[in-house]
């Protein structure tokens, strides 16, 4: 065991201990409610989940990968602006987009009224399966875009040139060279999209799209049976494992970095109708995924800002930011250890499984994680009682449980895999020759990590940080249930109003949330640092 091995072991334990609180249901005999779910609901839920996930996957791959491709390979008017703006829909939580679009297309909504003034007497029914697919694709495609972009912009043009020399058409080159070579990135992005879709509860509940997460919460809330809910989430987890396993098998032992000298092509200029098609494609995505909902939110905020600006909003903003920063830092550190452990030479099944298990959190619905983490911290607090008495905390037992520590721990558990996948993907790209040379020259693991790896995987770290930050700031179910008393984050403020059917009052909080996330993206790109370096380098 070395440094990375030990750290990964500890991290894995931290993640897995709360999960064992869920596994007990496997030993509880099934009850009549479970029979009821199986008999009347399960099939419908599985079918709907399949339709939803396939739809969202397909559309977001097309949107996400194509936009990354256009941005990295072509030059056209507004490309630079679009290159970072296309990430912005990620700043909008799916449930906010869901509520806003539902309101806009409702009978009193702005889109319906606009269509009526233009003479179309029809109403778009967004509260449906199609509507849900639309919302998820538009808010989640940036995962694929972001990761594909960093992959594509680093792809040495040598491969494509060789393909062309051998007589392949551009179309064939795209399908047989470009897409397969950037596979680790877009597949990782797609996995995130699938997991986010499976996890959502806000949109599917409001749209009454009866999918698996709906079943989990239905079992818990409507039928009052948490055991069946956990059983269902274990089933869900099992499906996720299968998806991941299939991906691994398909990927096999292929390597995605070859020892070729990086050579970057000047982007092809686009003119005429081709430029118009590409530009309208990108602007329509950006418009519907970001600009339109944000304009609507600005209108809400202007209607309600007098009652919205108060200390509660300020506190919520600060809480959201500090949660996101602290969790993201921890996730990066943990993910770095795990990723290093994952890429050492000795590969075996136990190690692979351990790493998979450590990244489990993302595949489990937030509210179920909340239950697991809560049980863990209550137990922990009971153990720590003597220490509390020693340091002068009288009477109280649930000291940690009632603090934000629980919350941050849950965030880390939930989002570790986002950090891991980004960093692991980056390692895949640089290969291990530099690190191995450093070891050969006698540097320690930690030294090699800090002096060799970190500068190399910096772009991956930045994108991991942004993704985790944005995910934490948008996170809802964990935050709701695990927050301390009198505590608000932006997401909980938004939810409280949205659930109360007062989405207008959530306008300002939503905008703040979006602005914070957006600023982060913009700030990073404007300094031409990190992942966007290569996207700009040829201008």
């Amino acid at each position, binding site marked *: 065991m070395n440094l990375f091995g030990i750290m990964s072991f500890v991290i894995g334990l931290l993640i897995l201990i709360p999960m064992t609180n869920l596994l007990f249901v496997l030993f509880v005999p099934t009850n009549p409610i479970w029979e009821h779910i199986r008999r009347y609901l399960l099939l419908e839920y599985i079918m709907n989940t399949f339709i939803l996930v396939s739809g969202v996957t397909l559309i977001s791959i097309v949107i996400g990968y194509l936009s990354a491709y256009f941005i990295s390979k072509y030059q056209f008017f507004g490309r630079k602006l679009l290159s970072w703006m296309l990430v912005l829909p990620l700043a909008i939580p799916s449930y906010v987009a869901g509520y806003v679009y539902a309101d806009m297309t409702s009978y*009193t909504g702005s889109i319906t009224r606009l269509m009526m003034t233009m003479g179309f007497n029809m109403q778009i029914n967004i509260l449906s399966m199609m509507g849900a697919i639309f919302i998820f694709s538009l808010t989640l495609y940036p995962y694929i875009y972001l990761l594909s972009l960093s992959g594509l912009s680093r792809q040495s043009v040598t491969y494509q040139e060789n393909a062309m020399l051998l007589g392949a058409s551009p179309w064939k080159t795209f399908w047989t060279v470009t897409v397969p070579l950037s596979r680790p990135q877009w597949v990782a992005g797609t996995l995130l999209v699938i997991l986010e879709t499976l996890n959502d509860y806000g949109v599917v509940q409001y749209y*009454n799209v009866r999918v698996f997460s709906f079943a989990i919460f239905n079992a818990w809330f409507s*039928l009052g049976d948490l055991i069946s809910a956990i059983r269902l989430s274990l089933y869900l987890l099992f499906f996720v494992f299968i998806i991941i396993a299939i991906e691994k098998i398909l990927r096999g032992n292929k390597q995605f970095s070859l020892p070729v000298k990086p050579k970057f092509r000047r982007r092809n200029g686009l003119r005429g109708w081709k430029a118009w098609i590409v530009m309208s494609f990108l602007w329509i995505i950006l418009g519907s995924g970001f600009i339109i909902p944000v304009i609507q939110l600005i209108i809400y905020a202007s209607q309600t800002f007098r009652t919205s600006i108060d200390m509660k909003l300020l506190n919520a903003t600060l809480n959201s930011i500090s949660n996101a920063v602290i969790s993201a830092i921890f996730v990066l550190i943990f993910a770095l250890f795990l990723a290093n452990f994952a890429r050492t030479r000795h590969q075996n099944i136990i190690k692979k499984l351990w790493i998979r298990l450590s990244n489990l959190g993302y595949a489990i619905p937030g509210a179920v994680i909340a239950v697991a983490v809560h049980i863990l911290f209550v137990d922990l*607090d009971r153990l720590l009682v003597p220490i509390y008495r020693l340091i002068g905390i009288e009477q109280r037992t*649930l000291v940690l449980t009632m*603090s934000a520590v629980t919350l941050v721990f849950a965030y880390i558990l939930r989002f570790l895999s986002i950090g891991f996948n980004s960093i692991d993907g980056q390692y895949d790209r640089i290969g291990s020759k530099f690190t191995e040379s450093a070891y050969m020259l006698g540097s320690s693991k930690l030294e090699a990590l800090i002096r060799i790896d970190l500068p190399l995987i910096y772009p991956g770290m930045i994108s991991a940080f942004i993704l985790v930050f944005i995910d934490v700031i948008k996170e809802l179910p964990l935050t709701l249930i695990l927050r301390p008393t009198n505590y608000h984050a932006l997401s909980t403020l938004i939810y409280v109003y949205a659930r109360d059917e007062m989405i207008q009052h959530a306008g300002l909080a939503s905008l703040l949330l979006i602005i914070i996330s957006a600023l982060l993206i913009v700030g990073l790109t404007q300094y031409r640092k990190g992942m966007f370096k290569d996207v700009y380098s040829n201008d």
Partner: protein
Amino acid sequence: MKKASLLMVFLFSILLITGCQFGNDQKERSITLYSERHYDTDQVLYDLFEDTYGIKVNVISDEADKLISRLQNEGSDTEADLLMIADAGRLERAKSLDLFQSIESVVLNEQIPESYRDEQGLWFGLTKRARVFVYHPDRVEVSELSTYEDLTHPRWQGRIVTRSASNIYTQSLMASMIAIKGEEEARLWAEGLVANFARDPQGNDRDQAKAVVSGVADLAIMNTYYIGRMLHSTDPYEVEVAQTIRIFFPNQETTGTHVNVSGAGVTKYAKNKEDAIKLLEFLSSEVAQRAFADANFEYPIHPNVVPNELLTSWGTLIAQDIMLSSLGTHSAKATLILNEIGWK
């Protein structure tokens, strides 16, 4: 290496700072409330309570079932003194999980009518809401309207919208039907109603009202308080919708309109039982009732307190004559039946 150790120190201090967010109001007298309600005006009442009695109210708000799980996990160590829930069925669920303790309070028994509280004083209703008909005056004559049961008549085919089976209001309405008519008749009623739906249930209560105005349906079953909220919406078009529709209290001449409560109970392991009872007494008192109910356009529970002008303008309401605790008894069954008959 120096950098790494600096980093560790930095991280550790962050952890400490986060850790320090708790435990700062040790000395002050306070109670902890787990609540499903979260209206800004509630806070005003809690502040008034603090000013009057010197007891601070700490709140965690979330959906009822998550708060219930949380209380279960925390067991005897919980810091929650009160659990407040916006549905009688859920209050009964918390009761059956042994999360409440029995309270004897003359004040509470005086202020809250018997049918709106638990017989053993485990929970107390604090506000009422009714599930009524909302219809479009151009397409529905008042004379056509009578009871929930009548909506199963074929002349309503394709004209009705309401919420989904996963919605608590639907479940409680169904539970009340079981309580009044028995399981078999309630099942037939639900089947008949589903057959007359204009569309698969979707959206929230406001969406049902909009469906009536837009012509998707002629009649919606929805809660009174959403109509009040829509009339006071910041969106002028929503106000217009609320002004277009008309309200009808069903079953006034038979079994009464379905009414539900939001209420609270003192938790079994409350550390500040007396102060928690004080808050319950305060919230159900004549002083606080009007504001507490008005926060959400609900009916006050206190018999002497007059409801909001808007609610009064709809006429007097005759409610279902059942103990609300029976909603809890039947709510699980209600959900099962809804699933079985295919109420989406």
